[in-house]
């Protein structure tokens, strides 16, 4: 078992998940509750990572984070070929899944309930935290799990922007590739088991969240 790759994968996924929660939820609320000019273009850009070749996405990230980018020129932050670059790549590929799920969940909350909260003295911020998000929580959590699972499995863009440096940027999916190339099948098998189990567990949770739970029917009135 490649322990350093496992540790790095968990580290990258954890950071990516935190970013997904903050950014993805904010975008989900924005898109689920408001209409604005240029919304379709905006959404399309967010969803691009779903269909772009990972290499293309990776190259975009190199342009955005690498030499000549504002990050390097103005802030002297060199993150290309470090694990934070892998975390950024992972978050970006997970983002469409998180945004899609949380947007649908937020949009499905009955606006009358939000209006009721307003007449009961709630500010828009309170309505969001005390009514909208609690009622949308299943979809939000499902989106977060899907996004994290996708982030954990990220390969192509990570390879482009973070490289494949054992112990520094080599995550589990990259380590599997290396192990198979080097015909270290036993090592590959263990990592396969770990990744498959995590993916299965994640998707199982998402399916469970989609199932009508004992209180679900009533939640929708």
């Amino acid at each position, binding site marked *: 078992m490649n322990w350093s790759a496992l540790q790095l994968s968990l580290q990258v996924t954890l950071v990516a998940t935190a970013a997904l929660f903050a950014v993805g939820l904010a975008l989900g609320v924005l898109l689920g509750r408001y209409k604005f000019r240029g919304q379709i273009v905006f959404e399309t850009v967010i969803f691009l990572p779903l269909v772009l070749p990972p290499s293309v996405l990776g190259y975009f990230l190199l342009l955005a984070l690498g030499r000549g980018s504002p990050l390097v020129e103005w802030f002297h932050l060199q993150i290309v070929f470090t694990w934070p670059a892998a975390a950024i790549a992972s978050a970006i590929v997970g983002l469409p899944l998180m945004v899609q799920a949380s947007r649908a969940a937020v949009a499905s909350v009955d606006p009358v309930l939000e209006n009721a909260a307003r*007449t009961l*003295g709630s500010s828009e911020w309170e309505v969001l935290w005390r009514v909208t998000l609690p009622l949308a929580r299943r979809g939000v959590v499902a989106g977060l799990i899907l996004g994290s699972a996708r982030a954990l499995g990220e390969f192509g863009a990570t390879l482009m922007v973070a490289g494949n440096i054992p112990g520094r940027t080599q995550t589990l999916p990259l380590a599997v590739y290396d192990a198979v190339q080097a015909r270290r099948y036993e090592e590959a098998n263990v990592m396969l088991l770990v990744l498959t189990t995590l993916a299965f567990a994640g998707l199982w949770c998402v399916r469970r969240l989609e199932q009508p739970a004992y209180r679900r*029917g009533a939640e929708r*009135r």
Partner: protein
Amino acid sequence: MEATSLKIDVEKRLATFNLRVRMEVGAEILVLFGPSGAGKTQTLNAVAGLTTPDSGEISLGDTPFFRSGSNGHAFNLPPRKRRVGYVFQQYALFPHLTALENVAYALWRQPSARERAHGLLERMHLAQLSSRYPHELSGGQQQRVAIARALAMKPRVLLMDEPFSALDSPTRQRLHQDLMTLQREEQLIVVYVTHNLADAFAVGHRLAIMREGRVEQVGVPEDVRRNPANPLVLAALGLPAAGDEPLRPE
């Protein structure tokens, strides 16, 4: 009795008609009666601040709720600052909160929120159901929770949109009695929307007949019935248009 009254004088262009409502409501139960799509709910929403009229004025005593200005600038008090109790058509209880938590919703910053909420539930004869979720309550019980929730912030105005339309008639009668007692004790200004004539006559101190966004006639129910202002009111009341004294049995 306080002299505070709710003044409504608004216009709003809607998809199918223009809403044009002008009335003054004191401490009484004013029934807005009319077919669906007459603008009754829109009127309530305008008072609660959930819809913005195109022009006009809404005020409660000295407190302005809405006032349109000359150059498109309008004063518009947000719903949360109007302290208007609103009982929605489908109750609109928060499904993720228990009956007690629903009633305590508006009081969450107050230290004695739970006690007060419990007191309100008790008053609505629901004390023993306080830990139930809305879906574990009957329609009539949900309605009582909705009223208790609306009363929690001690509103001067209570808006009710078809409050008892989904309930069976014994339950309705009981709730009508409770509502009338409540109104009298708290000197509430109640605007009660319904398309059910029996409900309208059962609770209304005054009746306002609405059709296609306009108030056709306002008056004590008996007067409206005896002296309908025009054929539209006759039709709204479901009375035959022909004949001069349709209600007087000869």
